[in-house]
């Protein structure tokens, strides 16, 4: 099955598409904050159907909100564009794989430096928390760029981190 999917390269090495062992559920909508709740409801539903508990469903919602918000705000430079989210079953069947895809400018959010988490109120910088939370919520987060697509792949185990 994997052969039917495009190979996505990163840093010169070929990345194998994730084996799609069961029907992939996906949603594709304009990259607008007005659609954020629809995206979040979609992954929430996928995670629940996958047997995730309430707390873990919230983790998935949070990571996806942060990722989709980044795309809506930065990927298309205020031009129109779309976001696609796919939910797949992970290799060990209990984990959930969520792929967030856009066709905007190359942007590896995961390369952002860690935010300041220790300064006092006056000195605390406001930015950078979104990507930090994605990393904390997902068991694995990877970014790939190929053929004009940004792909952020998040893997969630069923247990909370």
């Amino acid at each position, binding site marked *: 099955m994997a052969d039917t999917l495009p190979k996505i390269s990163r840093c010169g090495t070929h990345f194998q598409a994730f084996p799609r062992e069961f029907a992939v559920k996906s949603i594709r909508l304009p990259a607008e904050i007005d659609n*954020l709740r629809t995206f979040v409801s979609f992954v929430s539903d996928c995670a629940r159907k996958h047997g995730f508990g309430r707390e873990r469903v919230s983790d998935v919602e949070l990571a996806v*909100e942060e990722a989709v918000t980044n795309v809506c705000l930065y990927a298309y430079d205020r031009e129109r564009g779309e976001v696609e989210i796919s939910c797949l079953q992970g290799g060990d069947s209990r984990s959930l794989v969520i792929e967030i895809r856009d066709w905007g400018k190359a942007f590896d959010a995961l390369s952002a430096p860690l935010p300041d988490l220790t*300064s006092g109120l006056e000195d605390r910088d406001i930015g950078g*928390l979104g990507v930090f939370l994605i990393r904390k919520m997902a068991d694995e987060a990877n970014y790939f760029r190929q053929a004009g697509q940004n792909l952020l792949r998040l893997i969630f185990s069923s247990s909370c981190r």
Partner: protein
Amino acid sequence: MQISVSKHDDTQVVSVGGRMDTVTAPEFDSEMEELLKQDAKRFVLDFGKLEYVSSAGLRSILVAAKKAKAAGGSVSCCALQSMVKKVFDLAGFAAMIPVFDSVEEALNR
């Protein structure tokens, strides 16, 4: 997101329920901005009915706390539910903004 405000002596108790995310955080920003304009300086944010917060919500809380402090006041939070508490702890907020178990405890600090 639901927001209600009640006054206890010189402190505004701002109760926030539901979800504080990219979509709703601006409502909280507007409410706090309005209260600060009215010279309110001390705030207790009651999150007893807040089920979910994202980085947008954290940003709004941080901005409100900075503005209140700059005006000579303060912001504290109370009654954090599990998801909100987890995000606060991860983001190091609990070490920056006082967090209490209940509104009463926050008012009597």
